[in-house]
C-alpha cells in the first residue's frame, strides 16, 4: 500500500506555481473559490479538514496524506493532479469512502463520513458516489446493461428488475451507448467500456462522481471522447473529481488541485478546455 509513497520524495511533477501556495500549509484554499461563501446556500459536496492518512509498513510510518483540507462545491469539476506517490490515490480512496483517514474529518454532502464503518461506507458509496476507474472495472461476461444496473442491486430501495433495466437504458443513452445494451465488455472498445462504467456511476444519481485516471488506458482520441462525456455531465450539474497525472486531461477541468508529498501544493481555477466530439 505504501509503495506508491516512496517515489514521491523526488522533485518530479513539481508545478511552477507551487511556490505561490507552498506557505499556506494544509489549508490551501483560494479565497475566490472558498466554498464558505456558498455554504449558506448549499452544502459543499466535499469538505475535508486536515486529513491525515498514515500507513504502517512494519516499523516505518508513511504519511501518505499529511493534512489535506479541501472543499469542493456542487457543480465543480476538479482535477486532482500529482505524480505517483503524491498522495492523490490515497486522497481519492478516502474521498471515495473506500478508506478512512487516520485523523482529520471528511464531510461528504454535509455528513461526517470519516468515522463510518465498512457497511455504512458501502452504503454511502452506493448512494452518493459514482466511481469511474482507470481499468473500467466492468464485470466480464456481463452485458453493458447488467453492468450499468449493478449499483441498483445493492441500493436496497426496492428497484424491481424492470425499473432497473429502464434506468440502466437511460444512463447508457446519456453516455451515447443506446443500442449496445446487450454487448459484453469484450465486444466493446476501451472508450465504450469506459462509457459503460460512467453509465454505471450515474445510475444512482450520485452527489459526486469520482474518476480515477479514467483515460489512463485509452488513446488520445478516445480520451477526448470520454472527457467530453464528463464535461457534458458537469454542464448538467454533476460534481466531478478527476484524478489524473496527465496535464492535457486535467485541462478539461475547471479547477486544478495539485498534490505533492501528501499535501496540496497548488489549487487554482482553470479555464476549461472544451471538447466537443
Amino acid at each position: 500500500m505504501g509503495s506508491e509513497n516512496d517515489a514521491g520524495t523526488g522533485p518530479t511533477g513539481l508545478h511552477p506555481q507551487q511556490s505561490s501556495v507552498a506557505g499556506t500549509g494544509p489549508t490551501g484554499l483560494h479565497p475566490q473559490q472558498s466554498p464558505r461563501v456558498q455554504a449558506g446556500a448549499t452544502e459543499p459536496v466535499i469538505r475535508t479538514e486536515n486529513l491525515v492518512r498514515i500507513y504502517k509498513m512494519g516499523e516505518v510510518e508513511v504519511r501518505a496524506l499529511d493534512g489535506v483540507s479541501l472543499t469542493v462545491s456542487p457543480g465543480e469539476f476538479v482535477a486532482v493532479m500529482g505524480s505517483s506517490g503524491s498522495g492523490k490515490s490515497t486522497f481519492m480512496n478516502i474521498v471515495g469512502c473506500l478508506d478512512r483517514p487516520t485523523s482529520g474529518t471528511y464531510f461528504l454532502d454535509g455528513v461526517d463520513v470519516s468515522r463510518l464503518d465498512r457497511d455504512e461506507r458501502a452504503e454511502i458509496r452506493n448512494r452518493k458516489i459514482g466511481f469511474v476507474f482507470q481499468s473500467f472495472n466492468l464485470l466480464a461476461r456481463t452485458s453493458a446493461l447488467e453492468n450499468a444496473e449493478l449499483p441498483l442491486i445493492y441500493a436496497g430501495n426496492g428497484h424491481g428488475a424492470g425499473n432497473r433495466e429502464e434506468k440502466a437504458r437511460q444512463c447508457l443513452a446519456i453516455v451515447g451507448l443506446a443500442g449496445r445494451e446487450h454487448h459484453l465488455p469484450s465486444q466493446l472498445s476501451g472508450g465504450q467500456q469506459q462509457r459503460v462504467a460512467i453509465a454505471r456511476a450515474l445510475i444512482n444519481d450520485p452527489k459526486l462522481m469520482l474518476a480515477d485516471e479514467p483515460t489512463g488506458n485509452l488513446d488520445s482520441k478516445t480520451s477526448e471522447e470520454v472527457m467530453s462525456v464528463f464535461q457534458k455531465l458537469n454542464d448538467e450539474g454533476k460534481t466531478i473529481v478527476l484524478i489524473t497525472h496527465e496535464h492535457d486531461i486535467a485541462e478539461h477541468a475547471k479547477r486544478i488541485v495539485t498534490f505533492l508529498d501528501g499535501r496540496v501544493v497548488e489549487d487554482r481555477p482553470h479555464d476549461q478546455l472544451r471538447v466537443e466530439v
Partner: protein
Amino acid sequence: MLKFLTILKVGLKAIARNKMRSALTALGIIIGVACVIAMVGVGKGSQAAIQSQINALGTNFLMVFPGVATQSGARIFTGESTLTEDDVAAVKAESPSVAYVSPMSRTGGQVVYGNSNWGTQVQGVGVEWPFIRSWNTSQGSFFGDNEVRSASKVVVLGSTVADALFGDQSPIGATVRIKNFPFRVIGVLETKGGSTMGQDQDDTVVAPYTTVMRLLKGRNRIDMFMASAVSPDAVLQAQTEIESLLRQRHRLAPGQDADFMIRSQQEIAQTANETSRTLSILLASAASISLLVGGIGIMNIMLVSVTERTHEIGIRMAIGAKGRDILTQFLVEALTLSIAGGLIGIVLGVGASRLLAWKAKWNIALPPESILLAFGFSAAIGVFFGFYPARKASRLDPIEALRYE
C-alpha cells in the same frame, strides 16, 4: 427481499457459468448423500429384519441351560447336565408366571428315507414346545403326552427336511430312519425361514424329548429346557421365579454360584439388536465421511472461486455491496451446489437401495426421516463449508480487491 432475490440470481449465475466445475463439486455431495441413504437403508433394513425374526420367535420365552456343578467351592465337571425332568415339571407346577415349559434334548443325525438321506438337527422337545415357539404343523399333527411318556418313535419334520426327503409327496405316515431307529412321520412344521443368526430354522426334525434323550443319546438328563412367560411383561418375573425355584431344588446356598443359566429371548434380541445397530452406525459413519469429503470439496472450490473473483468482489464493494451482500452471494453458491447435490444424491441413493434390494435380495429400509436427514445434512454442509470462503470474500478490503488482477 427483492435485493436478496437479485443476489440469489447473481450466485446462481456464477454456478451456471462454471458448469463442469459446479458439476464436479456437486458430485462429492451426490456420492456422499447417496452413500448415506443406501448405507442407512442397508443398516436399518437388516435391523428391521432381525427385529421381525425375533418377534416371530416370540419375545416371551426363556432358555434354561445347565451350568457347572460346584461343591465346596471346587468346580467339578461331572459330564452330566444339572437339569432334570423333575426340575422342568416343578417349574411348570410352581411358577405362576410360567405358562409353558418344554424339556429339550438335542442331537445331530442323518435322517434316511429310502435312498435319500439328510443330515440335520434332531430336537427332542416336550408337548408344549409348539406353544412356546408359536410353531404349528402345516400337515399332520404334533405328538401328545402319550408319545412323550412312552418315548414313541414318532417325528415331526421341518419343512426343509420334508422337501429334501419327500419332495412333493406327503411324508405323513412314512417311516424314516434316524441313527438306524425307525421313526414314523406324524407331521410337518410350518416354514419359519432363516433365524437371527442366519441358520435355516426349518432344517430340523422334532421328536419327543424322552425318545431323543434315552434312545438316541442314551442319557437320563435333559440338555436344557425352555419356558415361556404368561405375557411378554412377565418374562423378568418368570426368570426370577425359575431362578429361586431351581436354587432351592439344587440346594444352593445364598451367594453360591448357580449351576444353571437362564437366558431370555429379550436378552438375545438385545444382543442381536446391538450388533446390527453397531453395523448400522459403522455403515452410516463410513458414508458420512464421504459426505464430509464432499463438503471439503465445496469449501475448496469456493475458496478458489473467491480468489478467482477477488477483483469482481472489489468492484461490487466499490459500487456499494455490503459485507453481507457478498456473504449472501457466495453462501447461495455453496448452498445451491450442496442442495442440488443432495437432491440428486437422494435420487441415486434411493435408486441404489432399490437395486440392492432387488438384485441382492437384501432387506432395505428407506425411512423418510433418513432421506430428510441426508437432505438437511447436505444443506448444513453447504452452509458450514461455504461460510468460511464466503466470509473471507465479504471481509476483503475493497481497495486491495480492486487492485487484484
